């Protein structure tokens, strides 16, 4: 999370999840809602910059889609590095995808700690009758890991807008908390940056000692 000049908050959000759970659809739905009136032909549904205004704060939301194929799983860290929020998408009709979400949660917790806002999204609620992931299990798991749980349907445009909006609010809250509790502490990277001035240019001394 960085603060751009002019007080705009930049938040980076990654969409994670197994392939074919509807990450891209969610993003596309969100994009199309946004650009609907403009008739902008969306060449790509991989990346979205969205400007929001929440509580009088200007927020620049960068939403990154990721490749969901299993073979690219190892590339996850490159994607979610420095991100402020992660949307973990699973298919309610696919038990495996939920298991994948659990993996992601573990990984994210391990790599980014509590700095990242997690949201678990059960997609494809329009296929409720084919549901395989029990609702209670999903919600309890979400509560357990401190993530919010949403049911969405990219197809019916259910809960998509709310999901992103809530995510943004939470990220903003977290950001403000961080900036209150620790002055200048904005993100993990910046934490390092803020400490380094003390050691700064006196080279590698402290490390090797």
């Amino acid at each position, binding site marked *: 999370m960085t603060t751009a000049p002019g007080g705009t908050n930049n938040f980076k959000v990654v969409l994670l999840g197994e392939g074919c759970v509807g990450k891209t659809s969610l993003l596309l739905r969100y994009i199309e809602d946004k650009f609907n009136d403009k008739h902008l032909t969306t060449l790509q549904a991989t990346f979205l910059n969205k400007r929001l205004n929440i509580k009088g704060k200007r927020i620049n939301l960068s939403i990154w889609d990721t*490749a969901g194929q299993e*073979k690219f799983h190892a590339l996850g860290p490159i994607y979610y590095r420095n991100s402020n929020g992660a949307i973990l998408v699973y298919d309610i009709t696919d038990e495996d995808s939920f298991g994948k979400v659990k993996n992601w949660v573990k990984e994210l917790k391990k790599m980014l700690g509590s700095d990242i806002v997690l949201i678990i999204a059960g997609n494809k609620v329009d296929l409720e009758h084919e549901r395989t992931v029990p609702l209670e299990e999903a919600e309890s798991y979400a509560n357990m890991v401190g993530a919010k749980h949403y049911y969405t349907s990219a197809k019916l445009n259910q809960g998509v807008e709310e999901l992103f909006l809530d995510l943004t609010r939470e990220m903003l809250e977290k950001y403000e908390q961080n900036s209150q509790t620790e002055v200048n502490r904005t993100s993990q990277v910046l934490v390092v940056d803020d400490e380094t001035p003390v050691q700064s240019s*006196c080279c590698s*001394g402290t490390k090797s000692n």
Partner: protein
Amino acid sequence: MWYGPNLQRSYKYMMFASKMPSLRIDQSDLKCKNGCDYYGNPQWQGYCSKCHREQMQRQRKAAAGKAVKTSPPPPKPEQKKQERSLKLTSHSSFSKFEEKRLRQSETLKKANLLKFSVFRKSNTDEQDHSERRPPEFKIPAMVNEGMKTDFRVRFPQLTTQVDRDARMFVYSFIMDVIKCANVMTVDELSERVQRHYQRFMKHMEVSPHFAQVDSDTRELLMDFVEKHAMTYLHELPSVVFSPSGTDDERADRAMSERIQQLSWVGEKHLECKLDRNSATCRQLLYKAISELLGMDSAWWAGGKLGRVRRCCRHVLALCAAPGAPASADDLLPALIFTVLKANPPRLVSNINFVTRFCNAQRLMTGEGGYYFTNLCCAVSFIENLSAESLNMDKKEFDCYMAMPASIGGSAWAAALSLCGATREAEEQQAMAEKILAQTQDIERRAEQLATNAVTFEEQIAKKVQDVLAKTPLEIKPRRELPRIGKFKEISTAPLIDLENGHQQQTYQPASISPQPYQPASIPQEPYEPATQPEPRVVVEETTEKLNILGFEVIEKESPSKSPPNPDQNWDLKQTNSMELLTPSPLGFTPFDSRSMDELMTPDEFGSDNLAPGLSNINYDIDLSDFSGENSIADDAPKFDPKDPFSPEALKKEFDPFAPQTSREQYKMLETYDEFSLVDPKTHVQSDPFEVIHRTEGSPTKENASILDDSPTSVCLPSPLQPQSSGKPA
């Protein structure tokens, strides 16, 4: 004072030198120089890490203090200016030298470079600080100048203070990076660079200079600053781009080799939907590859990101199915494929450079950041590519890997090379078309120019014609002057002719029309004859009843006598008109004379016609020589009666125009007069007489009034009077 590595190194040598003899190193030598119990390290100048840090901080403080002291030039502005102006030339040459040396140093290894920079600092700092303002001079001037011009182009609306701040920042940034490059690891340097960016960002928020700058422009300014700082630093070897402490170069080579090895990996292995046979697909891939290759030639992170962004857009277009936009699931495999086919030079170095020294904010957000992340993923994937990741049998994979490069890849390579050829052809075609258009344009212009020239010529010709058409009125009188001169010269001859003619006429009866006579009389002036006959005709008509015979007689006798006929008035009028015409050299136009005559002669409005005549007489008076005859005429009233009519007299009026001849004539006349008096039959002699009389006669009446008006008239008589006086005598 901070001597950096110099000191370190020299200290190392010193230690060796002092300890060499013993050939043994004591415990105490290994301990911290400061005397604490920790071990020291030659790298830290013999201190332990703690003491070294303290030491460094102290030194930096001192350096900072010194910088503060030296950086604002001591306030002696007048002296300084003089000095500066004096030393400017030598100084500039010096800075050039510095630049040159810097160039040389670029080829050296990093340590040397640093030494140079330190040397420059210690040397030039103290010398030049006093002469020049601190911030700009050490970095080659072109950086500074480039920034200035670029700033003016990109931010024309911003104040010079912003420009100055930006340049100050870039200066300090570059200096700091160069200073730290040797001492720090790459990661630390990267952090430091990031901190610099943040510092500038904060500066923009805090500084009053940036108060009016909106956030978008601030971002642009941030980019601007980064661009100029990093562009310079990028050129320096092993400072920010593939720094010496890292194995970036080796990684580059390894990567390149690996990509070559993986050239067999096709679109099927990566499960991306690419159609080799589709021309558009090939074109897009080709474009993407060329953009990716172009990444290496961009000098700063932003430029590299821009290349990556363009590349990825092409890739997205490549894998976008009709109707459905491309997703990340499509993008990554296609990008991996593109990277494999492109095999960009120094790929790892470039990626590392961007990750380390690009403004972190941009890298984390923004389109460029996203695509760059994808590129990183692609590279990472390629690095760790295995049989599993391609969903293929391990043995098969190994088989492929063991094979020499360019199996399977050749098809794509051929397609791409074809694509390159077609692209080149297209470019050349476009170029040719452009040139064609240019030549056509030139041709068109040439034609236009030709037509312009023609029209211009026509215009000029027309103008000339117009001018010629207009000017004759003005020019003619000028021509007349010489003509008059001619006339003067010639006048004698025609007179004779006239006289001859008269003689002939006189023999002929008066009834004979004068027309045949006219050409004979005055061949030179066609108009004149016209004028002459009319009065005659009139005379004939008017005088017919009274004395036709007398007319004849008059013509003959005119010299002899001046008969007081009723015709006299008439004659006078005639003469008047003729006089008006004839004596005036300027106003003398045959038309006028004719018209006047016409007006005058047919009707006997003598009194009315006199008035216009007066003005003409004024002209006459201007030429005193010619008008002289008038004066003669004044004297000659006696003769007036002698020649009442006689067109011959009119002819004789021309005489006055040629003063010389006339004078000669006058002399002649004087003699002739006598003769004429003696012998009226000699017509030749008598004619001049008549003329004189005529001229005399008319002015007497008219001139009376004219003389009063015109001052010249007063002058006129004087020269002529002697003649006139001669005459009566």
